[in-house]
């Protein structure tokens, strides 16, 4: 009993250390965002700003169109998440339920495709989008994000579909439900947490993406937040640290909000699935 209590204390300590490790960069970012320039250059940095200021936020908004960039990012990330899920869900269902050679090959290809470096695909992609007249447009960027997110989304969803017992669908069929009815009324609700998690993944990866947005969007009014954030950086990594931290802090908020809104649904859904299986 004593050993078990000690082990549990150790587990909590490890968990706490891990949380601190994860939270440190974010907390430091917040602290930096509120520090005046002279405090940022102090030899003895403090956890909390000694003389907190909103100047960095003022300067960030004054120098760069952060709201417009955030709106562009939001459209791109939401569009990518919705479309990726719409495409990946039926594909994942087929791949999970019909384990043919083709499905296996497709799974293999999905894994391999994750290893492609950006630079390898960007030029052909650029040319394709140019021919489609989709360069310098947010919908064009959404298409790229969908294609980029699709393999991993598919991979995630295949796992979720496999977790839904096929016997439940068979039972529905025995009860007279058609294929579509079964999918809509039985499978889809059980898949909901997986779909939400996948959408969240696609949203966050599109929200944070920098290079495609940098290359594909030319008009300043269409640039996304990660691209605008680099405008606080000079040559050889010199940075306007205060405004950069302020803008970066603001840029993390939408991801946090989206996650906070749907995290209950993810965990709730997972538990529900566990009981049913």
């Amino acid at each position, binding site marked *: 009993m004593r050993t078990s209590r000690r082990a549990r204390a150790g587990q909590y300590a490890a968990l706490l250390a891990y949380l601190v490790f994860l939270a440190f960069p974010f907390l430091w970012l917040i602290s930096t965002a509120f520090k005046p320039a002279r405090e940022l250059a*102090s030899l003895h940095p403090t956890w909390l700003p000694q003389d907190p200021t909103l100047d960095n936020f003022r300067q960030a908004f004054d120098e760069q169109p952060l709201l417009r960039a955030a709106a562009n990012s939001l459209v791109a990330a939401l569009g990518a998440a919705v479309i990726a899920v719409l495409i990946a869900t039926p594909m994942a269902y087929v791949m999970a339920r019909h384990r043919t050679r083709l499905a296996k090959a497709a799974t293999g290809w999905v894994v391999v495709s994750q290893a492609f470096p950006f630079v390898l695909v960007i030029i052909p992609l650029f040319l394709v989008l140019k021919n489609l007249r989709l360069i310098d447009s947010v919908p064009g960027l959404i298409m790229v994000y969908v294609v980029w997110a699709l393999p991993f989304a598919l991979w995630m969803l295949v796992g979720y579909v496999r977790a839904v017992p096929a016997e439940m669908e068979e039972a529905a069929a025995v009860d007279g439900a058609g294929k579509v009815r079964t999918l809509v009324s039985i499978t889809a609700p059980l898949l909901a947490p997986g779909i939400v998690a996948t959408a969240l993944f696609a949203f966050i990866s599109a929200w944070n993406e920098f290079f495609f947005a940098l290359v594909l969007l030319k008009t300043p009014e269409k640039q996304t937040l990660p691209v605008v954030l680099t405008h606080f950086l000079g040559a050889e990594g010199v940075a306007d640290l205060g405004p950069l931290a302020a803008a970066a802090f603001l840029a993390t908020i939408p991801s946090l909000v989206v996650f906070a809104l749907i995290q209950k649904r993810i965990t709730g859904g997972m538990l529900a699935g566990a009981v049913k299986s």
Partner: protein
Amino acid sequence: MRTGWLTGLVAGLLIVTGSGCSGDGSGSEDGRITLRFQSLAWQKESVDANKELVREWNAAHPDVEVEYVQGSWDSVHDQLLTSFEGGEAPDIIHDASDDLADFAYGGYLADLSGLLSQRLTSDIPERSWETTTFGDGVYGVPFLQEPRVLIANAEWLKESGVRIPTPEKPWSWDEFRRITDELSGGDGKYGVAWPLKEPVSATLNLSLSTGGQLFHRGADGKVRIRFEEGDEVVPRTIHDQVNTDGSASGSTLGSGGSDTLPGFFGGKYAMVPLGFSYRQQIVQQAPKGFDWQVLPAPAGADGLTQGVSPQTLSVAEDSPHKKEAAAFIDFLLRPDNMVRLARGDWMLPTGSEALRDPALRSEKDGWAVGTALAADLRSAPAQSVRGYPEWKDKVATPAFQEYYSGAIGLGELRRRLVKDGNLVLARYQR
């Protein structure tokens, strides 16, 4: 059925985007030309100056409108390469001269030789043009540059009683080593902090002062590396300051320039060798009452000579309006305008007339020391050497890092730079 909805989705997206598509950026349906100018200016004063100049140009040239596009130093090479390959590059391109070689040899940039005015061509000295000349063509206009200088804690230097160097009477490298030794207190205080996150360009550029060439082009046109006496002085000084004298902090060797500033402001280091434009950060961040000054980098057998890679303006080969683009560059780089750009970026202009401007000759914030160094700035040694980026990343950076930290000696450094380096360069020169 499945194919149906997918086709519908793609078609839908095409319809949605139909109205949002871009043209080629230079359409002239009404006879009006539009040029896209991608600027990498990032500091507020510099962005403001660029935008203001674009507005002035547009007001004076109703037939040739310039559209300002904010670029970013981060990933600019890949971004430009993709734009060139896709035929969507901006008409006027802001970059650094050490990034131009691949684009120039790749045929992406226009040869500006016959496009620039005599005024601009003669205003910028030949040594600056060398940084953008590749083969027989000129592929960019060098317009801003920054020497490496010593930013010093003025009070510390004054109290120590050491001789304060000037551009006319700089320290020699030996004197510099002796003085940093004299300045360090041994109680966590150092005479100098070298921020050498990027050790190669700093070492090579400063080594020009001691006659270090490292890259030697033979009669066959091929470049070979030789590490001679002139190449040894700067690396040996830094190595000895860190490892023998203890007058330079070893902990800053892996840091960038900005990372050393807190220690500098906190009184840990008497001097920090930094690019000239770092003065802006110092003005912004230094504690109240902190007294600092700009000193010239030490001089060697070749005086104060050092290598630089100036910022440049180029025209895309694909631009249908090269003449107009060159005219805009000419406007942007008129002496008065060059001064505005230089002040915005806290850098030195390349133009001789701009350099004479009283605003850049002021003692305040060290401008006068910088302008006095302008005549000694040369093209960075490795600028036009094909294969340099690979040599730098795979051979030179780790070799210099290990040498400066004391892990290897000068002999091993030489062996790696020369033997391993020539193997790399040979692959690019077959």
